[in-house]
């Protein structure tokens, strides 16, 4: 039997030498069956580990696929100077497309075009697919069977999210309704989900944001809705 320190050190070593996030399943799997910590034991170890790193240059966080060590945001500019690399920038068109896919998934290109009012360029879709942020999730059962797109765990990891529910809420719809009022427009009630979209869960509404009790796939512990990927230590208070 390994003692708790040994297990904790092993977990730390594993996380530190892994380029990709490790799930609790991964972590438990590296031990011999008789040594493997129980899930809550492992969670306690991870929490302790995270708080050990509290206030240091790196932190232990939980993202889509598991846990990873990453540098603290406030040191990013120094690290960038060290690397002499310019972070990639993404166009508004790409980000808007990505945002629509993320909040509304699954969506077709047509859905994206409907919101943005312009055609979705093939280059943008290709860039999102190649970056691995977006994948085809199926086809909509309408004539032409357009492809349905959704975001991936790589997307969550890149944007430091543990789940899609951690995306900030969409702006309140009333904001623009007020503009309409300024313009003396009588705004009808927002139309309900059209019939062709029935059955496809809308992701943008406030209700779905509330339903964050859902655990995230691959990370078998509940995630707080609005804390983003805070250090685990912060989550346990």
């Amino acid at each position, binding site marked *: 039997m390994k003692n708790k320190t040994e297990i904790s050190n092993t977990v730390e070593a594993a*996380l*530190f*030498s*892994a*380029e990709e996030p490790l799930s609790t399943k991964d972590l438990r799997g590296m031990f011999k069956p008789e040594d493997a910590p129980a899930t809550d034991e492992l969670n306690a170890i991870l929490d302790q580990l995270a708080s050990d790193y509290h206030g240091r240059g*790196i932190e232990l966080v939980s993202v889509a696929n598991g846990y*990873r*060590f*990453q*540098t603290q*945001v406030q040191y*990013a500019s120094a*690290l*960038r100077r060290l690397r002499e690399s310019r*972070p*990639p920038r*993404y166009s*508004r*068109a790409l*980000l*808007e497309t*990505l*945002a*629509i896919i*993320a*909040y509304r998934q699954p969506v077709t290109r047509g859905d994206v075009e*409907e*919101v*943005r*009012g*312009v*055609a979705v360029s093939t280059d943008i879709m290709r860039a999102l697919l190649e970056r691995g942020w977006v994948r085809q999730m199926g086809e909509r059962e309408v004539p032409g069977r357009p492809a349905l797109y959704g975001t991936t765990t790589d997307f969550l*990891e*890149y*944007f*430091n*999210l543990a789940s899609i529910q951690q*995306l*900030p809420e*969409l*702006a309140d*719809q009333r*904001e*623009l*309704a007020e*503009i*309409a009022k*300024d*313009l003396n*427009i*009588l*705004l*009808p009630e*927002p*139309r309900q989900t059209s019939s062709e979209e029935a059955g496809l869960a809308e992701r*943008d509404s406030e209700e779905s944001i509330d339903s964050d009790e859902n655990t995230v796939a691959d990370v078998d512990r509940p995630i707080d809705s609005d804390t*983003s990927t805070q250090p685990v230590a912060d989550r346990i208070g």
Partner: protein
Amino acid sequence: MTEQPDQLTADPKQGQQSPVLVAGEALQSWPEDLYIPPDALEVILEAFQGPLDLLLYLIRKQNIDILDIPVAEITRQYMEYVELMRRLHLDLAAEYLVMAAMLAEIKSRMLLPRPEIEDEDAEDPRAALVRRLQEYERFRGAAEQLDSRPRLERDLYIAYARIDDPDPPKIESLVDLNDLVEAMRAAMLSAHRRKHLQLVPETFSVRDRMSRIMDRVRSGEYVDLMDFFDPDEGRMGLVVSFIAVLELVRDGVLIVIQNDPSAPIHVKSKER
């Protein structure tokens, strides 16, 4: 266009700070209505994400009453640019045109007397447009928020200590001579099958082959023995390769290894 309703920069004299340049000169104000000067068209098409984006900008910036556009005028102005648009971003331009048409339609519908009956279904013609603007603005905001999130490659770096982990054969064991000969035989056999291969007389130098093998394994990696047996070289080439490997092994600069009796045979430089 006598009025300059909205200055783009705080101080119009500092035109170079204006974000929009037209033919080298700063565009001092956004056009009234939706009129777009020909020179500015391309710039505007690039600066905005589409007609909805442009409309939102105008609404926000000028508090423009998008519903009070002089229909005849705006239509005429837009049509002037159809030709121009055809030569520029046709895809984009078409969408701006659709929007212009929609605005015109809205205006004209509002001019018509509303039927007294079936009031329930009669929706304000502007409502659909406002809804779309509203929806677009929400996602435009969402995109901005997404962009400002801490993210990899810009704000966060994955902290990890790399472990050098060269994969290939872990067990080094000496190769049975019979296996080596068997490998040679297999190579010979595959050369033999190419019966009508015309052998161009070519001299193979064992010395030369030895140095080529050493070049190949210089990096310290494991190389499949079969890589040195090129059936296209014919028997002679194979024999020369085989002898070269044996010579190098005898000289102690090359080791030949095999994980288990049926596994591929690899060679590796001994210096590493």
